[in-house]
C-alpha cells in the first residue's frame, strides 16, 4: 500500500530517518555482525588475542552433551509453558466471553500480571515454593512429598514453568477473548437452532474459528518462552540444579559471563538468531494476522 499524495523533499526524509538508522546500525547491526564474526574466532579470556578458527566453535558446541541438554530443556520448557498457558487462558476466556455482569472486572483481574516483570514473577513463586520458608512447602511436605526445587531438577522445572505460565496467561487471555468476541453470534445461534449444545458448539464452531488466534499465540508464546523467561530462570534457579533449567538463551548468558567462552557463546547466539528468524518467517507466512479487538 502506497500513499499517492507525498511531499517532495531531497534532504528532509534522510534527516528524519537518521536517528533511528544510527541507533539501529550502532546497537543492532554492528553487534549482530560481531556475534557472527566472533563465532568464528577464538579469543583469550582478556580479549587481547583472537585467532580465526573457522567452524571450530560450532563443532565444539555440537560435541557438548550440555548443549543438547539445553536444547531438550528448552523444548520441554516451551511446550509445557505454551500448552498450559494457552489452555488455561482459553478456559478463562471462554467463561469471560459469556454475558456476565462482572465480566469487565474479571477481565482487569486477569490481565494485570502482564505488567509484572518476569524476574519479579519468578521471585514471587520462589517465595511461595521455597523449600524451607515457602507457604506451600510445608503442606507439600506434610503430604509426604519431598519438595525441593534447589536440589531436584524436576521440581525446579515445575517451579519455573508455574511462574512462566502465571505471567503468560494474561496475554493469551486477552487475545483469546478478543478472538472469541470477533466470532459472529449468528453462527453460534445457527448451531444452537440445529440442536448443538454449548460443548459441541465450542468444539465444532468456536474452536476452529479461533484457530488463527491460537496459531498466532502459539508462535508468540514460543518466542516468549525463549527470551522473556530469562528473568524467571535467573531469579528462581539460576539455571540449576545441575543445569536442569538451563535453556538455550540462559546458556548463551552463562557461557559468556561465567565461563568466559565468548566464541562459544557467540556461536550459540548465531544458532538462536537462525531459530528466531525461522519462527518469525513461519509467523509471517502462515498466520492470518487479523486478530481483532
Amino acid at each position, binding site marked *: 500500500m502506497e*500513499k499517492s499524495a507525498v511531499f517532495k523533499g531531497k534532504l528532509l526524509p534522510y534527516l528524519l530517518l537518521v536517528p533511528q538508522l544510527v541507533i539501529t546500525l550502532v546497537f543492532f547491526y554492528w553487534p549482530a555482525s560481531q556475534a557472527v564474526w*566472533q563465532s568464528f574466532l577464538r579469543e583469550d579470556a582478556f580479549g587481547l588475542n583472537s585467532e580465526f578458527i573457522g567452524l571450530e566453535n560450532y563443532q565444539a558446541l555440537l560435541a557438548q552433551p550440555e548443549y543438547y541438554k539445553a536444547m531438550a530443556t528448552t523444548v520441554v520448557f516451551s511446550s509445557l509453558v505454551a500448552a498450559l498457558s494457552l489452555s488455561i487462558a482459553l478456559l478463562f476466556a471462554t*467463561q469471560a466471553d459469556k454475558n456476565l455482569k462482572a465480566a469487565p472486572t474479571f477481565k*482487569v483481574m486477569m490481565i494485570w500480571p*502482564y505488567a509484572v516483570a518476569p524476574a519479579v514473577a519468578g*521471585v514471587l513463586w520462589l517465595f*511461595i515454593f521455597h523449600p524451607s520458608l515457602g507457604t506451600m512447602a510445608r503442606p507439600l511436605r506434610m503430604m509426604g512429598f519431598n519438595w525441593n526445587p534447589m536440589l531436584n531438577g524436576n521440581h525446579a522445572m515445575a517451579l519455573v514453568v508455574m511462574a512462566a505460565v502465571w505471567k503468560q496467561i494474561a496475554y493469551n487471555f*486477552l487475545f483469546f477473548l478478543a478472538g472469541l468476541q470477533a466470532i459472529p453470534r449468528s453462527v453460534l445461534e445457527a448451531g444452537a437452532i440445529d440442536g448443538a449444545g454449548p460443548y459441541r458448539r465450542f468444539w465444532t464452531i468456536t474452536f476452529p474459528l479461533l484457530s488463527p488466534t491460537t496459531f498466532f499465540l502459539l508462535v508468540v508464546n514460543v518466542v516468549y518462552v525463549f527470551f522473556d523467561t530469562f528473568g524467571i530462570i535467573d531469579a528462581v534457579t539460576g539455571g540449576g540444579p545441575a543445569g536442569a533449567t538451563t535453556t538455550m538463551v540462559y546458556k*548463551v548468558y552463562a557461557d559468556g559471563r561465567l565461563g568466559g567462552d565468548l566464541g562459544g557463546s557467540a556461536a550459540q547466539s548465531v544458532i538462536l538468531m537462525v531459530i528466531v528468524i525461522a519462527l518469525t518467517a513461519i509467523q509471517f507466512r502462515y498466520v492470518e494476522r487479523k486478530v481483532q479487538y
Partner: protein
Amino acid sequence: MVEHRRWNDILAYAILTFGVFIVVFPVYVALIASTHDAATVVNGNMPMLPGSHTLENYYRAIFIGGSRASREPVGHMLMNSFVMAMGIALGKIVISILSAYAVVYFRFPFRQTAFWIIFVTLMLPVEVRIYPTYKVIADLKMLDTYAGLILPLIASATGTLLFRQFFMTIPDELLEASRIDGAGPFRFFKDTLLPLSVTTMAALFVIQFIYGWNQYLWPLLITTQESMQTIVTGIKKMLTTTDELAEWQLAMATAILAMVPPVAVVVFMQRLFVRGLVETEK
C-alpha cells in the same frame, strides 16, 4: 447470548473466581510477607494475615536498603527504573514517528532499503546479541549510564511499523488540503499528523513503558555500580547475599514496589494498554 442457563453462569463465575484466585495468590503472599518481621517470614509458617511491621519494612527498603552488604536504597532504584522506562518509551516514540513519517510521506532513493533495515530488527531481541552489544556499550564508555541502559533497547521496529500503519489510514485529502493552505512538511507534521497520532503515541507509550520497566538481563549486565541498579535487578541481588539470612520481608516489599507502577499503568490505562498490545503485534 444463544441460550441462558443458570448453571452455566454459575459455572463461569466459579471458574473465573478460581482464575482470579490463582492470579492474585502469589502477590497476596508477597504483600503479607512484606508486613511481617524477618523471623516470622523465615520460620516457614507465616500467617496469612497482615503483620505489624509494614511501615518499618517499607521505610527500610525505600530509604535505607537491604542492610548488610550496603545495598542501594530502593527509592533510588525506583528512580533509575523510572528514568530508564521513560527514556525507552519516549525515545522509541520520537525516533519511530520521525522515521515512519519519512517512509510514508516521502519518495526518495533507498526508501525501501531504509524500511527493510528497520524492519529486520523486529526479529531479534537483545538477548541473542547480548555480549557484542555489551562490548559496543563498553567501547562507547556508556557502561553505568542511562544512555547505555536506554539506547540499545530503542533499536527496534515495532514503533515504526505501528506509526506507518496508522499513517496509511489517514486520508490523502488531509495532506492535499493542508498543501492548498500552503503547509510544508514541517507544518503538516506538527498541525495535522501529530494531533491525530496522540492516541497511537499513548498506546505505544504504555506498552513501551512496561517493556522498559521490566527489563532484566540488559541492566544486569551493564550496571556494575549499585547506584545505577534498577529495581527489577535489585530484588534478585537482595536474595543472593553470601550469608544465609536473606531478608525476604524486604525483598517482598521491594517486589511489591516494583510491580506497582507498571500494574497501575495497565489498570488505569486499560484501553490504551489493550490497544497498544493488539496493535504492536499486528
